[in-house]
């Protein structure tokens, strides 16, 4: 095996969470556990296994920036947590060619009462830097963050922008051979974001290794040299960024197939949506989007429920959430419901969209991801036709005007 010269080599990695079967309550207090045990001395505790990761193998050479991509719940964050040793694997073996630094969430480990200077030391040491290392990079960290003037001010008095910049700067100056990043590059203003991206690219150029988890396909394309695609805890593909992104986009269809079977969907199953239809499979950008949802009756289900409908774009980004509670629409489970949802007043960018339908009361009764999909035509709702660059990067379009004021 060429494991000796790779930055990360993972073989047979699984992570199983044991969840106590939902029918029985789980004691969180010792007294409760004891009382329960006394009452039911011979009861066997039943567990359900949830496989967050299953038999994952891969190898990453030094100097690579790897994007980890997958839908929500695919196991991306679990993988990072195991690689950074926050949580332990259930089976498998991982070899790391050096220290792993993590930027899992900007600002964890910052204490609001401490000054900027004190926080740099506290946070730096938490991220695994030695004191000499922090002292050496101190000026660089401060310069990168741009908060020189406020070093001796408690960070609780910082603006949120300054806070985030300082936190990111500490993490960005880690000298570990491997750096794991979870979504954090999406912070700060555009200028700081570009600065951070450039910094991360330099890290990879230095021959170190970057692992990057994100939903933002644009940053993955900009930063990563290769990618890994996870789905339902399994590694589906590892290869070039383009290939993986294509697979990711295609995966929305596979999800639609698996969730079409009601019994396989998450949720208590007290009620199951039987059908979700879009009036047209193709809409114009400004047209009203009409979605019809059918829910059969269940006389045993007590209490009205609400519907939450999510519309996601091609990259899995949630564009809008239509929660029926907001418009005071509650539904009676004892009757069959044929619901018509109209989304008006939102200009979609051209592309494919998927619709997730959730039935909820106290918890989730039915979660049907990718229940339906529609396409928005590439005709822009503006008087002038321009090339794509004019709208590139915007999540939605808006009805705007420019007027010259004055003479």
């Amino acid at each position, binding site marked *: 095996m060429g494991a*000796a010269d790779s930055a990360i080599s993972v073989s047979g990695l699984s992570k199983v*969470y044991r969840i106590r079967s939902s029918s029985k309550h789980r004691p*969180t*207090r*010792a*007294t409760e*556990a004891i009382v329960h045990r006394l009452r039911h001395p011979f009861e066997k505790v039943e567990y359900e296994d949830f496989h967050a990761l299953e038999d994952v193998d891969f190898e990453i050479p030094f100097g690579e920036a790897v994007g980890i991509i997958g839908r929500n719940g695919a196991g991306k964050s679990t993988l990072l*947590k*195991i*690689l*950074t*040793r*926050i*949580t*332990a*694997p*259930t*089976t*498998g*073996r*991982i*070899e*790391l*060619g*050096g*220290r*792993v630094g*993590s930027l*899992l*969430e900007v600002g*964890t*480990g910052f*204490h609001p*009462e*401490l000054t900027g200077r*004190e926080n740099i*030391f*506290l946070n730096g*040491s*938490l*991220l*695994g*830097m*030695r*004191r000499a290392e922090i002292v050496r990079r101190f000026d660089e960290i401060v310069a990168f963050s741009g908060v020189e003037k406020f070093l001796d001010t408690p960070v609780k008095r910082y603006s949120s922008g300054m806070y985030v910049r300082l936190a990111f700067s500490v993490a960005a100056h880690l000298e570990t*051979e491997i750096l794991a990043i979870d979504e954090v590059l999406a912070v700060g203003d555009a200028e700081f974001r570009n600065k951070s991206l450039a910094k991360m690219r330099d890290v990879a150029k230095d021959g170190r290794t970057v692992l990057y988890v994100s939903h933002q396909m644009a940053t993955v394309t900009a930063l990563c040299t290769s990618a890994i695609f996870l789905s339902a805890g399994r590694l589906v593909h590892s290869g070039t960024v383009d290939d993986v992104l294509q697979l990711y986009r295609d995966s929305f269809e596979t999800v639609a197939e698996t969730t079409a079977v009601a019994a396989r969907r998450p949720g208590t199953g007290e009620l199951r949506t039987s059908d979700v239809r879009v009036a047209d499979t193709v809409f114009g950008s400004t047209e009203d989007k009409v979605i019809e949802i059918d829910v059969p009756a269940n006389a045993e289900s007590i209490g009205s429920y609400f519907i939450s409908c999510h519309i996601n774009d091609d990259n899995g980004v949630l564009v809008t959430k239509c929660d029926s509670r907001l418009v005071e629409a509650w539904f009676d489970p004892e009757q069959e419901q044929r619901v018509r949802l109209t989304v008006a007043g939102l200009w979609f960018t051209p592309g494919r969209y998927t619709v997730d339908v959730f039935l909820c009361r106290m918890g989730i009764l039915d979660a049907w991801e990718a229940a339906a999909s529609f396409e928005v035509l590439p005709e822009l709702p503006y008087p002038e036709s321009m090339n794509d660059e004019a709208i590139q990067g915007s999540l939605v379009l808006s009805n705007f005007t420019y007027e010259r004021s004055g003479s």
Partner: protein
Amino acid sequence: MSRMVITPPGRLNLPRWRELWDAREVAYRFGQRDVILRYRQTAVGIVWVLLQPLVAAGIFSIVFGNLAGLPTDGVPYFLFSYIGMLAWNLFNGLVSRASGSLVANQALVAKVFFPRMLVPISSLFAVLLDFGVALVLGVVLLVVYGVNPGWGVLLMPVWLVCLLMFALGISLAASAWMVKYRDVTYVIPWLLQVGLYATPIAYSLSAVPEAFRWLFYANPLAWLVELFRASMLGTTPSEAWLAPAAVAASVVVLFLGVLVFQSREREFADLI
């Protein structure tokens, strides 16, 4: 460059001492944070440290010394109970701070990796600072009362370390259990309160009727307090076996605490 290998946790996890030592900065920074935060927005600051043992010793001398007239082996009662409170506050402070430390820092435990054991260990700094300040006042009291502890005082650091080991062992186990069962949060203050009276702080072991004395001798904390006080006041410990037994108990309790902590360490992030 050494290669780091991650495997599923085994049954018996001994801490990786090297890693613990490399990350000592974390404990130091945590400790510093605790100390800074405690006095940053207080009006009288460090005076609080002195006030607590002084008032406690004062009340003890009125209630137990004057009203109940408990014997103190010939030492002025106020001094006797102050020195006892010194030892007790060290134990009490460490256990009550360290046992809740993991849960108090749950955001960190769930999101960043560092040797978890450093969190409870970092409580040592604040506790030792309190002890140091209170000890200075204790020395002043010794001079004022004209008590000369003699050479026996050289043993005091030994009992100090033993007390810390004993308290840390209990704290490590308690903090690890607290991650799973929050009941520990309620049990600890209650046990500590009971412990204050069950341990000869306000009275000496010789005041306990013969018939019950074995009960007090069953409490290792009583041995440690007795030894600590004897070394500070220049008295002789009531039994000769106390010294070796106290050292052994401290080492065993610390070791067990480390084992309990380590066996649960790797599931903290999933449970907390």
